[in-house]
């Protein structure tokens, strides 16, 4: 069993996927489908697999979810589709993500081309940010006949798909292929173009019929205590750097301390282990009973051999020595590490975009801002901060724009 940074665990074969699909109860009014935030309709695609119609399963996934192959790998299914699965009444839920992965891998191998562009309606939409929310809104708008330009400040598209989620969970090949489908459909990608810097919002508003802000929470939160500390790096900077280099970084630490208790912290800790760091200690603010990381991620981190310590906050830093105190009991711990990685959350930067956010999202529910031309979607809109929710919000914002611009002209 390889356990390195670029090795994704293998998926189902034709035989084993049929066995897993055979466990599905083919429920009436299927709860799994209702629980998928993006309406990917697992009950329908599993039924297609069951009845040996893999291409039909791909049709269902792709038309409902432009990032179906990505969601298959990164959805916290235990909170969504699999949480609702009736099979739990017998033993364990159907491995919906795994089946979705088999189908979308098949779709890619068979070179299926499922998405269809709608007849052009002459309207143009600008999307700021090429993360999952931007990509899905682009797809839905293209299907409806809009012309779409996506502006991305980074050199590669994908947002946290490309610069966050580690390779062993989400191979970059998969991300690239999904994005290629969307550019093939007609999305124009403008990379290295920061809105607010290279092009102003006013300019975009003048040039397009609507503007969607899908900028995510792309900056790291830091603690003032660590300012200027040479051993400290933010989680997202570290993960981006490692993914970009496909694991080939020159400064793999001997030992490291990760600060944070969410999925991002788990990704950092596991990534370090896979890169060869001997001792990785994760210090979490939360105690285990209040942990934020998903069960899957937490289990993966434990399996990788990370030392997890819960309930501690950093109180002092001296060079490469960090001191932590327990939140509730009288305990203190000092750790010396070659590398200190802060995974205490990400924040939104909308300084030059004309909107305000609080605690990482806009203050209203929905997508339309006070400016009738400007919409928000993705992590900065109200709702869960996950890829599958970004897909849902991408579809919904596109629908809302279509209603606003074309409302009377469609049946």
């Amino acid at each position, binding site marked *: 069993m390889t356990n390195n940074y670029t090795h994704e665990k293998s998926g189902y074969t034709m035989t084993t996927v049929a066995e897993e699909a055979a466990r599905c109860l*083919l429920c009436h009014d299927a709860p799994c489908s209702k629980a998928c935030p993006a309406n990917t309709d697992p009950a329908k695609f599993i*039924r297609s697999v069951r009845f040996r*119609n893999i291409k039909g399963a791909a*049709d269902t996934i792709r*038309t409902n979810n432009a990032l179906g192959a990505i969601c298959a790998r990164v959805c916290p299914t235990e909170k969504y589709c699999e949480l609702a699965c009736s099979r739990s009444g017998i033993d364990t839920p159907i491995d919906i993500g795994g089946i979705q992965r088999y189908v979308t891998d098949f779709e890619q191998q068979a070179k299926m081309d499922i998405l269809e562009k709608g007849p052009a309606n002459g309207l143009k939409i600008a999307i700021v940010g090429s993360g999952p929310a931007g990509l899905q809104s682009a797809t839905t708008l293209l299907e409806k006949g809009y012309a779409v330009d996506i502006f991305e400040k980074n050199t590669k598209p994908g947002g946290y798909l490309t610069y966050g989620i580690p390779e062993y969970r989400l191979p970059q090949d998969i991300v690239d292929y999904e994005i290629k489908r969307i550019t093939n459909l007609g999305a124009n990608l403008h990379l290295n173009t920061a809105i607010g810097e290279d092009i102003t919002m006013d300019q975009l508003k003048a040039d397009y019929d609507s503007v969607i802000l899908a900028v995510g929470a792309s900056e790291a939160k830091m603690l003032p205590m660590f300012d200027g500390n040479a051993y400290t790096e933010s989680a997202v900077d570290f993960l981006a750097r490692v993914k970009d280099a496909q694991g080939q970084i020159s400064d793999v630490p001997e030992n490291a301390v990760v600060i944070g208790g969410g999925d991002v912290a788990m990704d950092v800790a596991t990534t370090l282990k896979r890169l060869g760091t001997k001792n990785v200690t994760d210090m979490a603010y939360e105690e285990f009973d209040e942990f934020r990381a998903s069960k899957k991620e937490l289990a993966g981190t434990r399996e990788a051999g990370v030392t997890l310590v819960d309930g501690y906050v950093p109180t002092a830093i001296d060079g490469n020595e960090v001191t932590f105190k327990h939140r509730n009991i009288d305990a203190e711990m000092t750790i010396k590490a070659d590398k200190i990685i802060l995974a205490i959350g990400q924040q939104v930067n909308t300084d030059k975009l004309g909107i305000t956010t609080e605690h990482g999202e806009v203050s209203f529910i929905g997508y339309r801002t006070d400016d009738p031309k400007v919409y928000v979607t993705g992590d900065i809109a109200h709702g869960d901060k996950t890829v599958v929710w970004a897909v849902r919000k991408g579809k919904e914002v596109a629908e809302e724009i279509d209603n606003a611009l074309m409302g009377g002209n469609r049946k």
Partner: protein
Amino acid sequence: MIKKDLGIDFLGVHFENPFCLSSSPVGNCYEMCAKAFDEGWGGVVFKTIGPEHFKVDEVSPRFDELTKEGTPFVGFKNMEQIAEHSLQENLDDLAHLKRDYPTKIVIASIMGTNEEDWVELAKLVTDAGADMIEMNLSCPQMTSHEMGSDVGTNPELVKKYCEAVKRGSDLPMMAKMTPNITDMVPAAKAAMAGGADGIATINTVKSISNLDLDKKVALPIVNGKSSISGFSGKAVKPIALRFIQQLRVAAGLEQLPISGIGGIETWEDAVEFILLGSTTLQVTTAVMQYGYRIVEDMKNGLMHYMDEQGVDHLSDLVGLANKNILPAEDLDRDYKVYPKIDWDKCIGCGRCFVSCFDGAHQAITWDEKTRRPSVDYSKCVGCQLCNLVCPVGAISTGKIEMKPGREGKIEDVDIESVRLTH
């Protein structure tokens, strides 16, 4: 998204797709057929309608299933007869369906006890607006020997009743044949001679599915006793396909129009029936197990298949396989093909060894240390049993060899076609 026209003409009637409910409880009343149409079925064969004077009296319970190693519904046994609703209710439902679904095809299944019944029923369903008639000559569990498969195995009666139906109606008509017969050809020829326009087959196969070992009686148990009755579902597909092939290659029946029935549940099953000569398809058991929704994947899968085959008209596929199924004596017996074992895929379970030793020719040797099988070419006859039992697909067809002393060249063997499973 795939989009292909699945439309096809059968006995002069246009079906928007070939998928029909077969006559049975799945098409028992207006609401059921309407729901089936809404979910995408192209036609329905309404539950068999009998004459007013034949009183249907069903048993309870009336079903049993055959399972194998955890798989339910491998086959399905039923003891049901014909429609329980009154004749008038059934006729009203046919008319209502046709009114509400003018583009869908409504087929009336009828069954009489004598010539007068058949004429009368044919008239009634024609007046009710049915598009087509199916004669049920094949139910194996009727309480009257004037009805059902006892009639269908008697060519004279088949011909006589077909003629009666044709006297009562000028609608296109198919005769539904029973598989409880050694050779279906004489019955089918009799039906065609009697004026039938096509054949529907198969109805259920006479069976005993399981026994209760304590009570020592077959299932289902009806107050302590049971009966031989009809078997359907996936397990009967091979039997249905065989009959359809035999009909299509019988002298004089080469272009016989067939509505194929028996164990259809996936698009692949459907394609098999079409390739062997079925123009439309009928389904009951899979609908009873899973619901009308199964038609979605049958239609979509069939469209993808047509797309892969580069076919635009479904009718182009009908009967393409008939010519490739020959009598056993006409097959090429000059070569054998050895299994090829891929040790990288092999997980060392030894099933191939067990099956080859106990069920074939002791031609697989087993290395106890490495837990890997190899083929002993001096003993292997090329039966490929090992290939079929391997759980991971590590065994495929490999080297082809001419048998000693045979004419012919290996190059002439179509290696691509040497394939066992899906």
